């Protein structure tokens, strides 16, 4: 697909005064070999953790080598910070969050607990946390995630708040899925588009502004804008006399309606090559139903990279869904999975991760050495990250041979540390691209090589979120650097990691 220069280019020109300063700063800094605030944050998330000792590098500091699972990051080693052995400590505050999966995906990027775990006015403070109450692990987290916070801080004049794409492992997955990891506000998950055709259309559709169609489109937009204006006015009217929490809920919706008004001014830009098809308003996943995650990723990753390089949004998300039984498209993993599914007991990817034994050959998926298909499956997600880094590095952005990766912070995260025990301890993160002064080519280990899963880490995963906030120079309401994202008043969640 070729470059299309229409209103987007015009808008870039018109908005140049607003956008030029940070751009020039970044360019200047890069030219001098310095770090700079990234222009965008891209979050890559997947469920079920990893096999720790095959994920974290062999040594801390700068002299390390990647083990099997993270080996695909080798080409980007110099631009990567590996963080291991940090605990998602906030989960320990509510007993309902301990068992199994509930609350852990929602917690890892928000740094808080599920809303139902809060009493009183349910504000996101430590004092409101209920230690244990049936059902307190449901309802979505009690605050936004770090990606939304960063997105608001660096949005500028970009047409979209975020570009959110997903890769589902389910054969029958429909288009839009609610994110398990990213939340725009308390209990409000980001909608993630898993249908490549619709994701493509949303990001890259051009409006035909020629001839008669132009006038018809102008009239349509005028009607839509008029209706939206009145909808926003009505939100203001409706909120009067309601409880404060209800008002906040309405305000959030109204703010999103306002954003739609802005988004009506659609952009066009360089779109990725690939057979994305034509979106249908009613059809489900066709023609993507039979594709594996690997094949779906091959469509979504270029799409996201191009959308980011087009500067359509300050935040991009790539989320992998279906922890139960995804179709990877990797012979080793899928063969094992298929064999297990036809056996007499229920084993699948979820079962493999949690240490079940194959009823076919009795192969255990935990212990030493871990089963090959487990390692291959986990490596898949790191490979997807590496593919995204590669796609960004291939897209020119700015002068002097700079690429989109030079202006992007890309973060890989999951909900567990070791997957076999539903562990919210000893998590790992990868930060890659432009880290604005944080160390790269570096492995930070929060607990030491020999730390077991019962030993507390000195660092919390919330401090990773604070580190991300610092990379983007996000400020709190008083204008000071944000150093305590997530649950207010929770001491283990304060401060950044010592990686600057």
């Amino acid at each position, binding site marked *: 697909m070729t470059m299309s220069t229409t209103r987007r280019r015009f808008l870039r020109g018109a908005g140049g005064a607003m956008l030029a300063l940070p751009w020039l700063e970044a360019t200047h800094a890069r030219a001098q070999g310095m770090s700079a605030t990234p222009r965008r944050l891209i979050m890559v998330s997947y469920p079920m953790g990893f096999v720790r000792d095959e994920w974290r590098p062999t040594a801390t500091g700068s002299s390390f080598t990647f083990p099997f699972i993270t080996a695909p990051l080798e080409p980007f080693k110099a631009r990567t910070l590996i963080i291991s052995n940090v605990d998602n400590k906030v989960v320990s505050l509510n007993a309902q969050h301990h068992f199994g999966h509930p609350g852990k995906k929602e917690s890892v990027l928000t740094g808080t607990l599920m809303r139902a775990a809060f009493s009183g006015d349910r504000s996101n403070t430590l004092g409101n946390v209920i230690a244990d109450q049936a059902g307190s692990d449901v309802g979505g987290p009690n605050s936004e995630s770090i990606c939304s916070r960063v997105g608001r801080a660096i949005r500028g004049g970009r047409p979209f708040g975020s570009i959110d794409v997903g890769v589902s492992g389910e054969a029958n997955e429909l288009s839009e899925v*609610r994110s398990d990891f990213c939340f725009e506000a308390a209990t409000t998950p980001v909608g993630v588009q898993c249908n490549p055709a619709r994701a493509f259309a949303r990001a890259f559709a051009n409006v035909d502004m020629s001839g008669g169609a132009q006038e018809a489109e102008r009239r349509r937009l005028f009607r839509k804008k008029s209706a939206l204006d009145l909808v926003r006015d009505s939100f203001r009217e*409706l909120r009067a006399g309601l409880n404060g*929490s209800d008002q906040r809920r309405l305000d959030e919706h109204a703010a999103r309606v306002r954003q739609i008004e802005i988004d009506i001014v659609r952009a066009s830009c360089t779109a990725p090559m690939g057979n994305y098809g034509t979106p249908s308003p009613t059809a489900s996943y066709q023609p993507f139903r039979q594709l594996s995650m690997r094949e779906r990723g091959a469509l979504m990753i270029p799409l996201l990279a191009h959308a980011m390089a087009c500067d359509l949004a300050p935040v991009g998300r790539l989320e992998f869904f279906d922890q139960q039984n995804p179709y990877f498209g990797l012979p080793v993993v899928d063969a094992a999975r298929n064999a297990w599914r036809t056996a007499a007991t229920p084993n699948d990817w979820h079962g493999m991760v949690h240490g079940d034994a194959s009823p076919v050959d*009795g192969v255990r998926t935990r212990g030493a050495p871990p089963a090959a298909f487990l390692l291959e499956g986990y490596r898949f997600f790191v490979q997807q990250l590496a593919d995204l880094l590669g796609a960004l590095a291939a897209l020119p952005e700015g002068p002097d041979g700079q690429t989109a990766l030079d202006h992007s912070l890309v973060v890989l995260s999951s909900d567990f540390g070791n997957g076999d025990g539903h562990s919210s301890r000893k998590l790992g993160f990868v930060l890659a691209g432009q880290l604005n002064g944080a160390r790269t080519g570096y492995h930070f280990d929060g607990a030491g090589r020999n730390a077991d899963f019962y030993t507390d880490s000195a660092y919390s995963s919330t401090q990773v979120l604070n580190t991300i906030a610092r990379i983007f120079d996000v400020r709190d309401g008083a204008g000071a650097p944000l150093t305590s994202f997530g649950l207010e008043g929770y001491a283990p969640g304060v401060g950044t990691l010592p990686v600057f």
Partner: protein
Amino acid sequence: MATLGLTVRRLSWALLLLTACQGRILDPAVARPTAADAGAQQAVGDGGAVGRDGGGIADAEVPPPRGVVAVVPIRRLSATQFHNTLRSVFPAPLGDALVARSTFPAAGARAGQVSGFSSDADNTTVSTADAAAIEDNAEQLADYLFAQAEVALPLLMPASCGVAAGASDATLDACMPSFIGLFGARAWRRPLSTTEVTRVHAMYTRVRAEQPAREAWSALMQYFLASPDLLYRPERGVGTQGVVALTPLEVATRLAFLITDGPPSEALMAAAQRPDFSPAAEARQLLASPAAAEVFGRFLREWLRVDLLEALDDQSATVPPAVRDALLRELTDLSRTQLLGGGSLRALFLTDRFPVTPSTAPLYGQPGGDGSDVVVSDRRGVLSSPAFLTAHAPAGHQVPILRGAFLRKQVLCQTLATLPAGVDLEGPLSGARNLPTARQRLEPTTTRNDCRGCHTQFNPLGLALENYDALGRFRATENGVAIDASGELELGGERWSFATADELLRVLGDSRLLTDCAAERWFHFVLGRPVQPSERPFVDALAVASRDTGATAEQLVVDLVQSEAFTHFLREQP
């Protein structure tokens, strides 16, 4: 409130007496009850001195719970409620056509949850994508109305305007203010103020200044279909602080959405504006409507997580789409026959009558079925329905541990112990994996000291259901070996032994834990958020009324809608 308050007072005494009695008869140190005792125990509850209309207990000692001390969040319409609204505010053929074209965003997948309902306030928050989908849907529906304008306008405009097909722009312009008032009142479930009519009409006028009347009218419809007054159910009540009463129209709206998943009819709105408005009487009428079974069916599907079936692949050979859809309908049908029409929660959990359809007949071991109730001898209550059993057999395999843990956590509202990180999940089972029955394969989990503390809580529940395979079909053997469904379990501080799945299901169906949990989930469902600690006394009273008075499900709903929990809310401090 009066009815429930009286019931609560009576039942508090009854509960005290019954508890004391149980303490003597069922003290685990003295005797171990068997499943056969469950019937006798229930007989005490059913035939004791205190029934729903029983007398003789003084009223004054136990004050009735107020029923509400907490905030009720504003609720947004779910997709079903939005579509029922379309059917309500547009005449029949038009409403159905709009629903067929609607792409209103559905609530997100609840795969990660074990509790909560799709209509919860926290499950219907609006993301950017949701907001865009809502607005796009409104535009899409308005475009359809524009395309059908010559049919739609005569149906929708006030009769006094005399709008016919081909009406002039001037005729439409003249009629628009009265149309806004008429249509707005239906869409917003309340009359519009003059100011509101003026503001909405100003938008019409603005578009009209550059476009024909039909285009401007379509913009108006686009607005109404995305207006917050339609999408949300604001409740302002009467009063400025503390516990305040809903207005009658707000009560009518709560009633309609609770029982029919849709807006109040014009008749109900009119009734709400009369001085003799009776929520109880209106509730009884609504409960008789077909929509009520749909709502109760949804409640049960989401409480018991039968809605997990919705995620089954269309291509599934194990559960073909026709079977899946029939199973999803099953709890609605059970609601109609066991809960409504004079039924009860106990009946639902203890019935041996099931709606057998052509798609589900093979699962019931029946030669055929036409959807009517059939006595099935090897079933006992909703927990033995193929719908429940299939939903809790992930990837086509039943897992006793998961089934048992689900019953404990979700059906009995109990907290499960924490699984320590790094625990060896596979090692204990390594020597047992090739044994023929699940009981044998899982035996190490109940004999090893590091496992049994937790697994003795839920393994017996799951193993008792081993008589039902992943599709809920009854089976007597596994791999040629007879299935032993017997077991013992601790329930509410008492130990029970049972020999068969039927006996276990009778114990569960009669257990206090189950009715307590049902009351908690129901209250959560009604108010769209989890029960708050301060509401526990009221929820406990609901459970007592359900368990010990023989009250029908309908009567419990009628009691609830008269309570302050339903007709009042707490205004937050500014």
